[in-house]
């Protein structure tokens, strides 16, 4: 459709451009209700349940951040464990100096966002596969540097101080709320970022980087912003991890296993949709709880499923849902609706709105 045609068609009311087919207010109200119900969980369930959910919050935050990197900005980082570890160590350092670990959490997130700047400067010269391994090398190097500080427990790490005054049930409730808060903030930030100008730039880059660049999109700046946000998010998740584990051990917090978990959860759920990591995290937690007594088998199964999904169902489980029901819980794209004719709207919707053309 040419621009002239589009202008006349739009002014004569032949079609409308909307964010969503359904009313967004309902989705928003639903999200608020879900968060409120989740926030009440510590009053209803035993701490065993909330402990599993804290783990789910950590994985969901991590995979949402990985999704932002790989699914929207095309940056496949295998070194996000650098930020998980840094977030955990920021909390440890502040706690050793007398700050409450819960108060240290936002500082850790901001610290990780700031730390992402020099790291981006180092790895941004590399593309795709080399970027992936370079981030991995960086994560290893950061761990080796931290292991040099005997005040931080060298290679064995330290227990997290500053939480001894809390009763176990109160501690587990606070940890749960911290995890929930981090996840809600991370998802909300991601949703708002992707709805705004950044989302538009990232979509343009994903479709055609050269064309986006020549149209004036600031590709480098958009990627830097994504890397910083993802660093802060993973750092916040690492801080929650430190609080929930009550200790910080370098090989555990800097393990590449974190990146494996976030990547696999994202791919299984659906790369490039905000809903994908939520589904992926649910699958992850289910698998992990089912195979809990079989050591690392959950990771092997998860890896195999991720390979199969990546090869045969590129849009993941959410993609399968979306293809049939056309549902978006977090509408960040645009719908084109011709007139008020529902039938015609349905026909065009299929063609115009899929993020990944089939």
């Amino acid at each position: 459709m040419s621009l002239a045609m589009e202008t006349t068609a739009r002014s004569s009311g032949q079609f409308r451009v909307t964010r969503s087919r359904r009313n967004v207010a309902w989705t928003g109200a639903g999200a608020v209700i879900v968060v409120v119900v989740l926030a009440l969980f510590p009053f209803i369930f035993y701490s065993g349940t909330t402990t599993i959910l804290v783990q789910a919050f950590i994985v969901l935050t991590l995979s949402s951040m990985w999704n932002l990197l790989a699914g929207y900005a095309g940056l496949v980082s295998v070194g996000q464990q650098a930020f998980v570890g840094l977030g955990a160590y920021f909390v440890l350092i502040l706690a050793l100096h007398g700050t409450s670990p819960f108060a240290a959490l936002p500082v850790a997130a901001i610290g990780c966002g700031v730390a992402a700047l020099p790291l981006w400067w180092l790895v941004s010269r590399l593309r795709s596969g080399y970027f992936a391994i370079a981030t991995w090398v960086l994560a290893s190097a950061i761990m080796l540097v931290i292991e040099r500080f005997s005040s931080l427990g060298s290679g064995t790490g330290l227990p997290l101080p500053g939480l001894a005054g809390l009763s176990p049930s109160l501690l587990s409730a606070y940890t749960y709320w911290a995890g929930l808060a981090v996840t809600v903030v991370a998802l909300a930030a991601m949703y708002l970022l992707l709805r705004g100008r950044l989302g538009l730039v990232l979509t343009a880059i994903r479709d055609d980087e050269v064309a986006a660049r020549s149209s004036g999109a600031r590709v480098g700046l958009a990627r830097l912003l994504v890397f910083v946000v993802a660093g802060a998010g993973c750092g916040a998740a690492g801080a929650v991890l430190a609080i929930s584990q009550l200790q910080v051990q370098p090989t555990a917090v800097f393990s590449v296993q974190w990146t494996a978990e976030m990547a696999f959860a994202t791919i299984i759920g659906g790369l490039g949709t905000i809903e994908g990591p939520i589904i992926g995290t649910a699958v992850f937690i289910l698998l992990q709880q089912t195979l809990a007594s079989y050591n690392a088998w959950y990771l092997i199964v998860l890896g195999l499923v991720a390979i199969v999904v990546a090869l045969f169902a590129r849009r993941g489980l959410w993609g399968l849902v979306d293809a049939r029901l056309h549902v978006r819980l977090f509408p960040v794209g645009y719908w084109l609706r011709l007139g008020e004719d529902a039938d015609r709207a349905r026909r065009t919707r299929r063609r115009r709105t899929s993020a990944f053309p089939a």
Partner: protein
Amino acid sequence: MVWVNAIVQGVLTGGLYALFACGLSLMFGVMKVVNLAHGDLAVVACYIAIGIIAATHVPVLWSFVIVVPVMGVLGYVLQRTIIQSALDRGVLTTLIVTFGLSVVIENGLLEFFTANTRGIGTGLSLVTSSFSLGSQIQIAYLAVVIFAVAVVVLLGLQYFLSASKYGRLIRAVADDKEAAQLAGADYRHVFGIAAAIAFGTVALAGVAYGMSAQVDPTAGTDTILLFAFAAVVIGGLGSLWGTLLGGVVLGVAQQIGAQINISDEILAGYLVFLAVLVLRPQGLTTRRAQS
């Protein structure tokens, strides 16, 4: 004298790192595949060698005669199936699939063979004995042999790619696979052959590593993949000689780091890698930056 020793040992270790790296380099150069499972496959080769030696009692040094073809066939099959279908779906899928393979292989090895370290050495005089230069420099025969193997493999690959008929075909396919296809080359088969060669070098690297050190499943990523990558970046992407130089620089940096403080061995190597990334992102040997 201590420093000279560190440099000599570093150069010799560098040969092993170059051997780690040439398969990674070859697969990227020809297929544009960054194989994140590279190191874990080397560990698989090492475990196969250990199994074959235990089961058939072939002489330790000749185990590679079996392991290299086995890994070559595995490389061809993996390339024609999983990696090729990932390549058809884009760079992102290739990375995800090879990363998935890496995690699956590493944790699979951990489940079946535990985290215990094992090695190939069985008291061979070549593996254990050494000769001295001057009073303080002890050079293990094995290190010299591995260095020589690395140089021979790199020389052979360079000659094969630049002078042989099949090497020309591989380069043609690497440059433009559609055009090569139009000229009658089956690029999928050529990719398979290139992967087979790369996996052959991976097998050699795994066996060599198993002879010179104790190997456990996590060595695949922690040591082999990351060191191989550092060697490739230091030397310059897409240059086989650069890879050898990069391996040597990495090895020397590690040994000098170990002289300063024994726990700084690996960190010193990574610092040189980062310095090259900042000061000379195109690597030490390449003239212009490559994407």
